[in-house]
């Protein structure tokens, strides 16, 4: 009878769970889900190159981009100091960029060189996700733009076509954030100019943008990029060179300041990928530049 009673009691008794048992239960039932990798780069640009970042839905980015003239330490007659190391000459792009969805960003801007208006679109095709069973190992974006040069025609008597003003960029952006400190980017790029100065020179320039971003502190990063052209290197009588840039991001809440040195004077791909006139052969040919980005959320507060 005693045995029966024991068995009976064991049926009635309910197991007691310690807090750790409950935590383990949670872990098992709610394992870490792959979530999108954030902050691969600090900004929508690495320096000159587009990064994989886009404005999130209903967020507007107002960008001011400046490039000055070369530092010219070595130009003689104190030329560099005379121009305050390039600060007396500046080119500017003002731009607005807006997230229609979390994946699609559109933008428009105007830059000094060629009095060019540009209209751009960037789309996140693949988004890198954190570790997990079906994690995506890298991000893939498409970037495209159209530039409209609005300089007065150099020869108004000639029959000039509007289409001659247009240039286009198509770019794939492949990025990977390896860890909290290192992100790399590779961007196969095609720049097309409807009009070039001679039939001997190519309308299409292919290039391969490469770059990296390295976290220094929670609010700052070091960036570097290089955009070698794959064809037409000797065209245009060797006038053009590959763009190189090195710089820092400093983020202060809603602002990102990108301060850098680059041999490229252009601010859109049409201008810096295939139309960089200064060869990077020493510090003297670098220009100081900065991008200033201010983000506004158009989403209603609360909810």
């Amino acid at each position: 009878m005693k045995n029966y009673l024991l068995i009976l009691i064991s049926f009635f008794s309910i197991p007691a769970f310690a807090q750790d048992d409950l935590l383990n239960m949670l872990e098992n039932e709610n394992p870490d889900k792959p979530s999108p990798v954030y902050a691969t780069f600090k900004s929508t640009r690495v320096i000159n190159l587009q990064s994989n970042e886009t404005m999130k839905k209903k967020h507007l980015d107002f960008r001011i981009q400046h490039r000055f003239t070369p530092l010219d330490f070595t130009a003689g007659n104190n030329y560099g100091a005379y121009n305050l190391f390039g600060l007396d000459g500046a080119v500017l792009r003002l731009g607005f960029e807006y997230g229609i969805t979390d994946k699609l960003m559109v933008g428009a801007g105007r830059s000094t060189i060629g009095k060019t208006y540009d209209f751009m679109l960037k789309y996140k095709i693949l988004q890198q996700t954190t570790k997990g069973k079906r994690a995506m190992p890298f991000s893939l974006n498409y970037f495209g733009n159209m530039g409209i040069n609005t300089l007065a025609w150099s020869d108004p008597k000639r029959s000039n076509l509007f289409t001659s003003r247009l240039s286009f960029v198509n770019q794939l952006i492949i990025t990977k954030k390896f860890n909290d400190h290192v992100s790399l980017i590779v961007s196969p790029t095609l720049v097309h100019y409807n009009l070039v100065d001679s039939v001997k020179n190519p309308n299409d320039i292919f290039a391969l943008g490469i770059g990296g971003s390295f976290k220094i502190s929670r609010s700052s990063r070091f960036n570097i990029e290089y955009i070698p052209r794959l064809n037409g290197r000797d065209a245009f009588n060797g006038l053009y060179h590959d763009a190189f840039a090195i710089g820092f991001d400093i983020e202060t809440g809603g602002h990102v300041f990108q301060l850098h040195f680059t041999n490229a004077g252009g601010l859109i791909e049409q201008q810096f990928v295939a139309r960089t006139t200064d060869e990077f052969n020493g510090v003297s040919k670098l220009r100081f530049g900065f991008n200033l980005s201010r983000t506004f959320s158009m989403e209603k507060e609360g909810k």
Partner: protein
Amino acid sequence: MKKILFTLITLAGIAGAAQAQLFNTSTAQIDFYSKTPVEDIEAHSKNAVVILDTKTNNVVFQVQNTSFVFPNKLMQEHFNEKYMESEKFPKSQFSGKINETIDYSKDGSYDVTVTGKLTAHGVTQDRTINGKLVVKGGTIQLTTDFKVKVADHKIQIPTLVTAKIAEEVSVHVDALLSPKK
């Protein structure tokens, strides 16, 4: 004798089924608010997981930091990248024990205190948190409001933005638990 035993076992089974021991949810809401004269910030997660053991009064909460949604997505990114460091510390959790005796078998409302450990940003703090527990129609609702000092969890705020982020963040939790299947 055998018959009696069989009946008893069956009864025990029915009794066990009628009163569940574990209650849980995976859609508990956690909100937090940071208020300063310069800027009010708030964020919401609806994906916190909770289990309550009604026999031992043990209760655990867990939330994935990346599940917090901010109206300003830039803040959301900074929250994860700069403050919570969600890649290193993906989850925040609380595990504790309800100090009061509660009759889970009938409807009722209780003011409770829960003593346990709050872990965020990899730092664990002993806390006793006041809350409310309501038993109603076979469900249990847990609500609480408490404050977290960001410095207690070694979350550093850069001097540039100290005016914008409160030193003490208010947290609101609302969890409706049903018997665990």
